[in-house]
Each structure stands twice: as C-alpha cells, then as structure tokens.
C-alpha cells in the first residue's frame, strides 16, 4: 500500500494516531474547551434586562462573588456535604465489603442486589426519599417516630438543621453500594500469602486489616474516593428535587446556586462566574489528590 511520506497528507494515514484521535479531539474541543472559554467570557458580562442583551461589566461579577454571603454559604454546604457523605460512604462501604467478602451461598445474589441502586436515576432517588421522608405519611419518618428518634412534629426536609441530613441519606443509600463493589473487587484480588504468614504469627483480625488490607488496597480506595469525590462536589439532582436549596439556604449547593442564578434569576454572567469557581475548585482538589495519592490511569 502506498503511503505519502511528505506533505500534510502523511499525517492522515491509519498508521498515524491523528486520524484515530481526530473525532474525539474535535468533539472535546467543541463541547468542553470552547464552552469553557465562552463561560470565562460570560463571567465578564451580565444580562441587562432593559437593553435585552449582554453588556460588558468588567470584574464586577467576580467582586460581587467575594462579598456574596449566599455564595459562601453554598460553598460551606457543599463542603460539609462532600466530607460527611464521602466519609460515610467510604467507611460503610468498607464495612459492608468486608462483610460480603465470602463465598457463602447466596452472597453472589446479595452483591448483585446491591448494584441495583446504582442505575436508578438520581432524580428518581430524590423523589423516593422525598416520599419516604414526608412528615405525614412517609415510611421513613414513621419508622423514626415509632423508634422515638424523631420528634413527631419535626418534618425532616423542612427543618433547617435536619434537611441536609435528609438529602445526605439519599446519597448514602444510592452510592454506598458503589464503594462496596469497588472495595470488594480490591479485597478479592488481595494476595493470600501475607495473610497466611500474619495468621501464623498470631496477628489479630484488626491488626491484619490495619497493616495488610488497608495498605494493599490503597490504590483502589484512592480511585474510589477520587471518582465519588468529583461527583459529590458537583451534586445537583438530589437537592433540586428534594428541597430546591431550602429551607432558607440550608441545602444550597454551589451547583444549584449557579444554576438558579443563571436560569431562575436571569443573572447569566453571575451564574457563569459561580460555575467557573466550582470548576476551578474541583480541578485543584482532584489534581492535588491525584498527585498525593499517586493515582494513575
């Protein structure tokens, strides 16, 4: 077969990576890089209702951001949500994975059942928990009241101090199985020899977990934390359908705040500015984590 060895044509043969990567590159440039620059451009503009068009406002959106207490509250809510839910999902996920790491009859079925939560649309999960946490007829509220945990007059999702917990519950329910499955795959591929040696030396189960399981699983745990962490920081669906950010600002996440500023309050430039900050925080945190935990693809 003839392949041109000179001129621009030589890059466009199947022996070069270029034609293979061209469609992906074009699509990613058009749909992620171009919108990114468009967003930066938007953040220096604002919609002027009287002129019915975008006007240049310089750094005004960025200086507003610094003084906007609702924005900082939304960062706070997102951070609390991020750390609490991540910790719960990692710890519960590990405990359940250790529990299910066995060849008992029926355990394969149990592992399969756990995967079902992952494919339910998060918006539907939000509605499921909205129904279950309903103060009047919700099955979860009813159970908590019967157990005496919840005051009979307290509605979970409209009490400022409880609302975020109510939303977190949906997240923990849906994504703890994500951790369980990943950790189980890690546990299953652990080498047997170190554990046998430790048993002979009389190590306790906890010592073996602490000194062998955790270090050997470090990479798997890091990947799980990275992927889940990215999604937690940009959480939108649950709060949108369950609380719309309320009561007050108790469940306003940054994503929801940016979205509402843009599409509900027609502050196009300001919403874009907030979404850019979210993007910057995620990229910094993720890259820092990738470096510290030495995650590689």
């Amino acid at each position, binding site marked *: 077969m003839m392949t041109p060895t000179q001129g621009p044509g030589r890059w466009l043969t*199947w022996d*070069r*990576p270029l034609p*293979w990567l061209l*469609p*992906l590159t074009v*699509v*990613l440039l058009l*749909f*992620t890089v171009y919108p990114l620059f*468009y967003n930066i451009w938007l953040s220096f503009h604002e919609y002027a209702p009287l002129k019915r068009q975008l006007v240049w406002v310089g750094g005004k959106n960025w200086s507003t951001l610094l003084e906007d207490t609702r924005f900082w509250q939304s960062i706070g809510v997102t951070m609390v949500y991020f750390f609490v839910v991540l910790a719960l999902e990692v710890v519960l996920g590990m405990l359940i994975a250790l*529990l299910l790491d066995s060849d*008992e009859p*029926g*355990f394969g079925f*149990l592992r399969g059942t*756990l*995967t*079902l*939560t992952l*494919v*339910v*649309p*998060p*918006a*539907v999960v939000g509605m*499921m928990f909205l*129904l*279950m946490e309903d103060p*009047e*007829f919700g*099955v979860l509220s*009813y159970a908590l009241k019967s157990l005496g945990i919840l005051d009979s007059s307290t509605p979970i999702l409209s009490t400022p101090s409880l609302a975020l917990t109510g939303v977190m519950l949906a997240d923990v329910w849906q994504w703890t199985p*994500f951790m369980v*499955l*990943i950790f189980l*795959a*890690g546990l299953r591929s652990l080498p047997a020899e170190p554990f046998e040696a430790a048993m002979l030396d009389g190590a306790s189960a906890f010592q073996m977990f602490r000194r062998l399981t955790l270090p050997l699983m470090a*990479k*798997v745990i890091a*990947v*799980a934390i990275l*992927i889940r962490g990215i999604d937690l*920081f*940009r959480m*939108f*669906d649950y709060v949108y*359908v369950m609380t719309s950010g309320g009561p007050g600002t108790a469940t306003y996440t940054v994503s929801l705040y*940016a979205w509402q500023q*843009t599409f509900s309050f027609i502050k196009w430039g300001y919403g*874009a500015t907030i*979404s*850019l900050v*979210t*993007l910057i925080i*995620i*990229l910094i945190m993720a890259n820092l984590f990738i470096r510290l935990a030495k*995650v*590689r*693809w």
Partner: protein
Amino acid sequence: MVQSPVRRFWRILIAWMVVMLFFFPLFYWFTVAFKDAREIFDIPPRIVNFTPTLANFEEVFGLDFGGQKSQVARTGGGNFYMAPRLLDSIIIALFSTLLAVMIATMAAYALSRMPFRTRHHYVAWVLSTRMMPPVAVVIPIFFIYKNINLLDTYTGVILIHMVMNLPLAVLLMKSFFDDIPREIDESALLDGASRWLLFRRIMLPMVKGGIAATAVLCFIFSWTEFLFVLTLTQTSLKTVPVVSSTFVTSTGTAWGNMAALGAAAMLPAFVFILLVQKQLVRGLTLGSVKQ
C-alpha cells in the same frame, strides 16, 4: 479461613439484613406504583397489606388492562400520559451511546497502541473533561445552543450526552485494548496487514465484550442523566428522570403515577446492569480497577 458456626451464622444474618435494608426503598417504591392513591397516604404506611392495582401504569402509559379504575377522582388536574417521554429517553440514550462508543473505540485503540510524545498529557486531558462540573458546561452550552438553534432538539441532547460519556468510554476501552497482547498487532503488521485491517478484523472482535460493557454503562448514564435534559429541553422532548420530578399538581404530588413511571424506567437498567456484572467495577472506576 475457618470460622466458628456461630460467627458464620451471624455473618450471614447481618449480610442479608444490610442488603435488605438497601433493597427496601426500591421495594417500597414498586409497591407505591401498584397502590391506589388513598393507600399511599395511609398511616401506618402499607408495606404489603394493600390491594394492588394497575391504574397508575394504565394512566402513565396510556394502556388499558381492563381492571377496575381508580376510585379516587383526580383533583388538581395534570396529564400523566408519559409513553412519548419513554421513547425520548430511548432515542437519546441509544444514539448518544452509539456515537460515544464509535468515537471512543477508535481513540482508545490509538491511545493503547500508538505511542506519541504527548500521549500522557492527552489522556490526562480526556480525564480532566470528566471532572468538569455539569453546571459549568450546561450554562455556556445553553447559550451556544440558543444561538445555533439546538435547544429543545434531539440532536442537542444526544450530542451533550455523548460528550458526557466520552471520557468514561475512552478510558474504559483503552483498558480493554491494553489487555490484548501486543504480539498480536506486531505479527499482523509483519504479515502485511494495514492498521485499519488489523483494527477491523482482529482487534474489534477481541474487544467485543468490552464494547458491550462500555455501551451498557453509557446507555445507563444517559438514561439517568438529569441536569442537561432539564436545562436544554423545554416542550418538545423530555426524558424520564426529568418528567418524574414534575408529577406535581395543585393539590399534591401524583406519587402513584410517578412511581409507576420510575419503576418502568428502572427495569431495563436493572437487566442491563446484571448483564455486565463482571465488567461493572472496571467501568465504574474508568478502567483503573480490574476484577
């Protein structure tokens, strides 16, 4: 490891209880789908002691199973015929998956087999697009779509769902290509096969399973996606997760209808996910943890 019978008993018992606790909300949601409007609001909540009815499904999918109609007249109005929305969901998930898998498979082959100087940076770039918060994509995309008339169209949603799934599909397919021994490429090229022939005739058949797993995951992520469809569509199309959150009338939420739609939308996803159990963890971790 040898366990005492007592410990073994407790382990099995606790494992079943934990998993049933996770299964309960799904089970409860399915019971709501089969409940009459009155029974949904009963206190104490009815778990199994209710009279099943298909009325919710009949209303949502415009079917008639010939059973007794709901006794409770709907107050507050609302049209809950959602069969077209199910079709919208299928069209969008199908085409976005098809495009994502095609583009990703080609790119993944090159990233796995053709070393070039900036390859690691390229992979890092693909990965970093997976980190972009959807809200930071959807705001500019909304205005771009508005300018080129892609708002409220299948094409617009299909394209953005494809883009959303590309990082996952590329990294996952790359991990499947990485599993194939390099000697196969080398001997085929030595025998005079072109790259394209090698890819088409030897590589693709070897990663069939990987392509299927990737396609299933892309389909599910498109099927369950919420924010893009919520923002980029208005009246001519909507997917199931978005309409599910709109079953609200002036007198309350139509829980039964919503649950019926949600339950029907979950079933295909359940079947799919059980088909790819073996590749699931690899998929969820973008190809980095293998089972």
